[in-house]
């Protein structure tokens, strides 16, 4: 038992000591919810995405202020915040998860790795389990994470008024591009 305790202790402390944390506050996440009948492009970019990746454990978190999504059209940005995302009530969207195939990716070595990140995505106050394929590129102290996936608006209780129901896509395709630096 003593041995086990010792092992557990060592494991815990090595984790803490040699944790390889990569971090950014200027990651980029964009989305597109344009439908074939949309009179204009419904897309936005957020350049204030915060993210931390622990390359040893594979833990990966993302967080972004909803109000920092920039639209081409100011009015659309207002409607996005006020009516769709209710950003006063739900100011942040976040993802908490883990690289599920960490064994396939040798993040200690330079290279590009295909990974799957699974965890909990919280948008508009609703949390769902998601699993997202993406790539992680390691180059020295820099890690670039890229992914593209789709979410259903209804899964996050984001409602579209019936008058414009066919002018906004029911799904949003999300693109992540984050450059993290070793801390």
């Amino acid at each position: 038992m003593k041995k086990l305790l010792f092992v557990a202790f060592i494991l815990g402390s090595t984790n803490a000591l040699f944790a390889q944390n990569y971090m950014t506050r200027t990651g980029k996440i964009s989305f597109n919810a344009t439908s074939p009948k949309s009179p204009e492009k419904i897309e936005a970019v957020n350049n204030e995405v915060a993210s931390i990746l622990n390359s040893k454990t594979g833990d990966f978190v993302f967080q972004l202020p909803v109000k920092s999504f920039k639209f081409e059209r100011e009015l659309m940005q207002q409607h996005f915040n006020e009516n769709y995302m209710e950003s006063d009530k739900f100011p942040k969207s976040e993802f908490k998860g883990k690289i599920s195939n960490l064994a396939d990716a040798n993040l200690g070595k330079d290279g590009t790795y295909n990974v799957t990140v699974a965890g909990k995505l919280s948008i508009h106050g609703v949390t769902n389990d998601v699993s997202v394929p993406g790539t992680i590129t390691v180059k020295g102290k820099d890690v670039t994470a890229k992914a593209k996936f789709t979410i259903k608006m209804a899964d996050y209780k984001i409602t579209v008024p019936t008058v414009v129901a066919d002018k906004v896509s029911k799904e949003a395709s999300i693109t992540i591009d984050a450059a993290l630096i070793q801390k």
Partner: protein
Amino acid sequence: MLATAFSLSVATTFAQGDADSMMKMLDDEDAAVPKKEDVNFTFKATRLINGSTTESLGAGVLDMRISHRFGKINQGAENFFGIDNANTRIGLDYGITKYLMVGIGHNVLGKENDGFAKVKILQQKTEGMPFSLSFLTGASIQTTKAPTLPTTDMKWYFSNRVCYFNQVLISRKFNDKLSLMLMPSILHNNLVDSTKFDNNTIALGVGGRIKLSKRVAFTGEYYYRFTGTDNNVGSAKTYNSLSLGFDIETGGHVFQLHITNSPGISERIMLGQTTDTWSKGDIHYGFNISRVFTIVKPKEFKKH
């Protein structure tokens, strides 16, 4: 043994709670920076009903506005309760920067051409600045035909057609639902109908909105005049302007539907020539519609 169990639990929480502790790190960092965000969307549009709000257009945004006021509701069935008569203002507004917008327009009533500039001086913040303040200045020219003057040596000066208006707009978004605004205003008419009348109309406007749902808000504005209250238009008395309405948002547009005792849309008419009164049922049904175009794209959307 107890110590063992304790240590084990520490070790396990360490492993499981990593993502949580990383998220907490981000949250803590965020909390350490004082949040001084702009409080946006105090009102849904740059106009409350007849008058302006502290809202500006974004930089590079062109807004085409059509405002319509029907005749008086109490004009009876033969005028279809006012629908048969209408006054319109067609206008173009443009946002030069986030803080400065300009606009021009033409009003059918009084054949007025007007122009204005509105600058946002103070911006309400989540911490610190408790309100937003904008300053609006403008002028309007009546293009009606010059009247026939009693003697031929009298001249009808261009300046007779001109009036000036200035407004300080002070607004506060109290919460998601309630926004209120004060609008100290002055209207200067170069020419009034009689020497007994005041060239200056000084007024204090109060306005606000209450959001009834995510997409519908109840709005109101009232301008109380301190001077110029005895000014007549022809033989008609003038009154303070009171308007009530709804902002209805349908995805891409904001429709403003309202009832008002002001027969026209310009500042000259709203402040100085509101010849109708609620007490007699001289109420006009009206609407504002606007269509925005992005002329200069924000930098995130410029093609490199």
